[in-house]
């Protein structure tokens, strides 16, 4: 399985190196956004209290893009490989397509993360503003990406059956954005279940209390626990639905059709 992971990893690198314009345009977007955030942040804050707020915004933005990447990568891979006539070869892997897609997603996230960190440091060097980003942010970050991966399997399932996922992806982004913006954490009564079970909700609550209230990772009430439960839940749902969708596509015999 490690060989499969390194194969995915190498494949991504090779493509990045071979098509540097795509790489550069992606990098340019990240640099511009971060630079804009820095400038805007220092303008609003008068250059003085560029502390917590700005780093929160940047961490939030980075997490959002990485999560959206995890939601979209697997579905995109499936439609792309079906068009290029390689999807069936992927399904011939003895590891199974679900694992191969997961590995590809991981390779993508790691590369995205490297870019983000790289850009962040360059922008900090350029602007001379140095931010402190807590290493503990990694834990909610990983949980968020795990939930996103579960949603990614759902998108992949739709793609394998309907052969397109773009509309679903657009819709999903709106819903997720809403879930992130909405203060679900303060909901009470039966709505509390929504705050715990809806994708991203508990981990956003966790991040919020860590960031705005400076709570320690373990000092956020039950939000850490609920975030873990939520991530596992969505991953499981995603995996189950994907297994079902695969079976259905094999029965229809249209795995490779596009």
């Amino acid at each position, binding site marked *: *399985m490690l*060989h*499969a992971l*390194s*194969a*995915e990893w*190498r*494949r991504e690198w*090779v*493509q990045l190196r*071979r*098509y540097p314009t795509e790489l550069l345009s992606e990098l340019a977007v990240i640099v511009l956004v971060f630079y804009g955030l820095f400038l805007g942040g220092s303008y609003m804050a008068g250059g003085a209290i560029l502390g917590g707020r700005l780093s929160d915004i940047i961490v939030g933005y980075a997490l959002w893009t990485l999560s959206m990447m995890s939601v979209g990568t697997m579905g995109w891979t499936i439609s792309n490989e079906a068009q*290029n*006539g*390689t999807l*069936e*070869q*992927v*399904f*011939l*892997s*003895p*590891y*199974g397509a679900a694992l*191969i897609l997961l590995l590809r997603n991981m390779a993508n996230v790691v590369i995205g993360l490297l870019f983000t960190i790289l850009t962040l440091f360059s922008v900090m060097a350029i602007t001379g503003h140095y931010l402190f980003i807590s290493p503990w942010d990694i834990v909610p970050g990983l949980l968020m990406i795990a939930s996103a991966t579960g949603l990614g399997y759902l998108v992949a399932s739709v793609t394998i059956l309907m052969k397109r996922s773009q509309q679903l992806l657009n819709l999903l982004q709106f819903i997720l954005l809403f879930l992130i913006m909405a203060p679900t954490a303060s909901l009470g009564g039966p709505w509390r279940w929504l705050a715990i079970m809806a994708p991203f909700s508990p981990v956003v609550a966790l991040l919020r209390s860590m960031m705005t209230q400076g709570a320690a990772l373990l000092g956020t009430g039950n939000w850490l626990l609920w975030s873990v439960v939520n991530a596992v839940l969505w991953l499981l749902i995603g995996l189950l639905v994907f297994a079902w969708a695969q*079976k259905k596509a*094999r*029965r*229809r*015999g249209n*795995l*490779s059709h596009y």
Partner: protein
Amino acid sequence: MLLEVGGLVKRYKTKDRQIVEAVRGIRFTLSAGAILAFLGPNGAGKTTTIKMIAGLVRPDDGDVTVEGHSLSGRSGQALRHLGAVLEGSRNLYWRLTPLENFEYWGGIRGLSRKTARDRGRELMREFGLEDKIGSTVQQLSRGMQQQVAICAALIHSPSLLLLDEPTLGLDLDASDRIQDYVLRLAHERGVGILLTTHQMEVAQTLADRISIIQNGVLTLEGLKEDVLARFTGSSYVFELAEAPSAEARLLADDLGAAWTGECEFRAVLDRPTDVYEIMRALEPCAVVRVMRETADLATVFREHTRKPVPVENIREVTA
């Protein structure tokens, strides 16, 4: 036994809610080192059968085992022993080089980078393509791409290779290379090969066994020699003095003529005296030569598939 295919059945539901019975109860086996040519008209169910063997299409009934491992349920073990080049697909990443493709396809089959590279180089050398290992696949000719696809399917040294129309659309040179390689692969390395093709010369050169599938049913199965012997002694070549009229040509067609030129055709006759019937049909065009010959696979195939699929055969399987 390397491959056991037992009673495969596949019914597709089409978009307009009709049911297509693509495969109706196919069973056969393939042993190591043997080449089985799977022949049949368009839509007979060849690709469907191959995809069921590769686990890409789920059969409604029946089972496939590769090296004793079943493909239904947990198919990982069976897939380790199997490689496939699928019909009409690229089977490769065109933006990568052959070597990078081998690293990738080897990797997701559990090979280390080094093993995949070494094996890939060796395979490319056997095809005489070692100098192409660093160009991207899209820069290669169609024939080379297909050869690289075969290399990629063999990267994990499978004992069973499935080839769906491997020489389709290739020039003679590429086709010959692939055929030479396939023969060596089976007879020297002991790989079992199942291939489909519409090119009868290819099947005749390669196959140890021949299967003909029509309407989802195997209607003929046997050793190549036996299959060819079926019509030997009743296959004739006719040569005419001039090109016959269109009507005469049609009449001869009804009697089983398969034209190999303006003035030449083959026919399989039940009785030698049927020669007269053909001559009469062609009048006034003169027949200048009639010769009895051993049938080639094209003749056997044409003759065999001219008859409709025996109905009782279909009933037996679908009942």
